[in-house]
């Protein structure tokens, strides 16, 4: 078996490959930390077992990823933005044998959620928890043995599913390598680059981008807390010359940097953006960055990096030479060496993701230009992209419907100046209950970025020709906002 270490540790460079707000790390530091975790796990047999990682400290996270992969375990990266409802759904769906977790984040106790879940599962499981990432406390839970996986899986990455059951996207180290090389090629990453990265480390893109420092000897600068003035200081301190981010987050960085430290923007040679739809002229707002190259990248956790474009021109994507594409009924279909293998224990969903000839159905509606380039015109799948994060309306609808005072709900996305898109929920309440408490309810149940920005109480969900037509509802809502009739968040 080829491990991540075999693929990505190509050299013994002692230069810094990862920087955070508080520390700098070389490849050797990461190797030493990995060896420390190999020691902690020396008596554990991880083969065929799933190991959940909820580790916001990115150095410890990366070291654990490498150690678990060395020992043949399957890594299940978990987001520290999860809250009770979405985290529990992932645990029930992916059922890890082991969990490594930080005790709490912002007062929310993850170890308590994991321990309660393990206790109630009635199965053998182990939860390692930490406060300082140095000392780990192990709690063992007894019961029946969970079945082992027969198939080798390096990663199962979580994504929201439209049915409420999270999707486990199974990817191998080899497919990560392809996506990583795509990121390096498109952004011309060189050993001396200082690349600011803003991506969730639990996503396929985030894992690839973090590993790209080790692979290429570039210095990845990763903010381990989301603090915009702090980020601007970090860009200055590390003298970053490239940025990988989402359009909405870069726009906010630009607004803050332009006031606090305009020079950090002038140092940038490449800004590479992904995760949200952009329109022609998007980069015109960055008026102080005339000499910077702006690149758009297109990809997904399922298919990896696939296309890129020059955002200073008309937005038309070039498909990477290693990837095959075709357009059927305006939908983009791809075949890629970076494609995932399947959705974990969900053959039906896997079957739906591909056509009968093995083409991945992206769900993106596109137009193919005469020069074989691709313009994205919309989405076939019902998905909101807020701040670069994907939100499935069905998941939010299900959470709101679990509230005892909610009778009916519909959730959709509308454009937003800062977030790219924002989330709107129309709710019908039982007994004229006040809907304002639903904001607090959602904040306790789901990740912050999934909490609706507007929850509007209505007496009935408007139907268009007998069914809920989200496109019409969306347009109605936008007109109301523009008319100033709605209460602005």
């Amino acid at each position, binding site marked *: 078996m080829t491990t991540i270490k075999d693929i990505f540790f190509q050299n013994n460079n002692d230069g810094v490959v990862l920087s955070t707000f508080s520390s700098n790390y070389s490849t050797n530091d990461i190797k030493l930390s990995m060896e420390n975790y190999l020691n902690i796990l020396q008596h554990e047999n991880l083969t065929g077992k799933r190991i959940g990682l909820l580790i916001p400290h990115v150095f410890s996270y990366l070291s654990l990823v490498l150690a678990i992969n060395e020992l043949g375990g399957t890594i299940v990266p978990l987001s520290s933005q999860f809250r009770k409802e979405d985290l529990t759904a992932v645990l029930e769906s992916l059922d890890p044998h082991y969990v490594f977790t930080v005790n709490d984040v912002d007062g929310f106790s993850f170890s308590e959620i994991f321990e309660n879940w393990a206790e109630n599962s009635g199965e053998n499981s182990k939860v390692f928890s930490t406060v300082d990432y140095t000392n780990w406390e192990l709690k063992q839970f007894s019961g029946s043995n969970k079945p082992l996986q027969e198939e080798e899986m390096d990663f199962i990455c979580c994504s929201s599913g439209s049915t409420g059951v999270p999707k486990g996207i199974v990817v191998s180290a080899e497919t990560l390598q392809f996506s990583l090389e795509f990121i390096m090629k498109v952004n011309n990453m060189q050993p001396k680059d200082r690349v600011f990265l803003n991506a969730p480390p639990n996503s396929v893109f985030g894992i690839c981008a973090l590993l790209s420092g080790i692979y290429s000897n570039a210095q990845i600068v990763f903010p381990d807390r989301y603090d915009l003035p702090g980020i601007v200081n970090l860009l200055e301190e590390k003298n970053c010359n490239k940025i990988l981010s989402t359009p909405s987050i870069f726009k906010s960085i630009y607004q803050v940097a332009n006031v606090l430290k305009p020079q950090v923007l002038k140092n940038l040679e490449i800004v590479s953006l992904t995760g949200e739809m952009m329109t022609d002229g998007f980069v015109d707002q960055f008026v102080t960055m005339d000499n910077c190259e702006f690149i758009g990248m297109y990809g997904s956790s399922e298919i990896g990096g696939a296309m890129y474009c020059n955002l200073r021109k008309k937005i038309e994507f070039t498909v990477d030479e290693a990837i095959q594409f075709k357009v059927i009924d305006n939908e983009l279909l791809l075949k890629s060496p970076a494609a995932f293998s399947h959705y974990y224990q969900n053959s039906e969903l896997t079957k739906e993701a591909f056509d009968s000839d093995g083409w991945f159905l992206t769900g993106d509606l596109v137009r193919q230009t005469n020069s074989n380039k691709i313009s994205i015109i919309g989405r076939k799948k019902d998905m909101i992209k807020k701040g670069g994060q994907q939100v499935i309306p069905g998941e939010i609808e299900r959470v709101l419907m679990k509230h005892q005072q909610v009778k009916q709900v519909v959730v959709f996305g509308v454009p937003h100046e*800062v977030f790219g898109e924002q989330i709107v929920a129309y709710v019908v309440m039982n007994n004229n209950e006040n809907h*304002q408490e639903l904001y607090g309810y959602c904040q306790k149940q789901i990740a*912050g970025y999934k909490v609706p920005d507007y929850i509007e109480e209505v007496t009935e969900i408007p139907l268009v020709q007998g069914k809920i037509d989200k496109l019409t509802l969306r347009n109605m809502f936008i007109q109301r906002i523009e008319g100033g009739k709605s209460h602005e968040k």
Partner: protein
Amino acid sequence: MSFDQVAKYIADISHVPIENIKENSRFQDDLGIDSLQLVNLFIQLSEVTGVGFNHFLLAEDLKTVGGIYHAIAKGESHDNN
């Protein structure tokens, strides 16, 4: 603009219960408002108060409600002169 008015705006924009918004409340740690939401909050506060966006970012204390309240007061005084 009084502190209560600023707190009311913050509550309306961010959906945090107004009784939780104190002068020493920290946006991220106490109110759960992350940095991207904070930029959105500043843009909207700038619109409703008429105080330039720059005044928010140049505040001595960006992390607390009180810091932003003082930035608005300073901005109003600056813009009126």
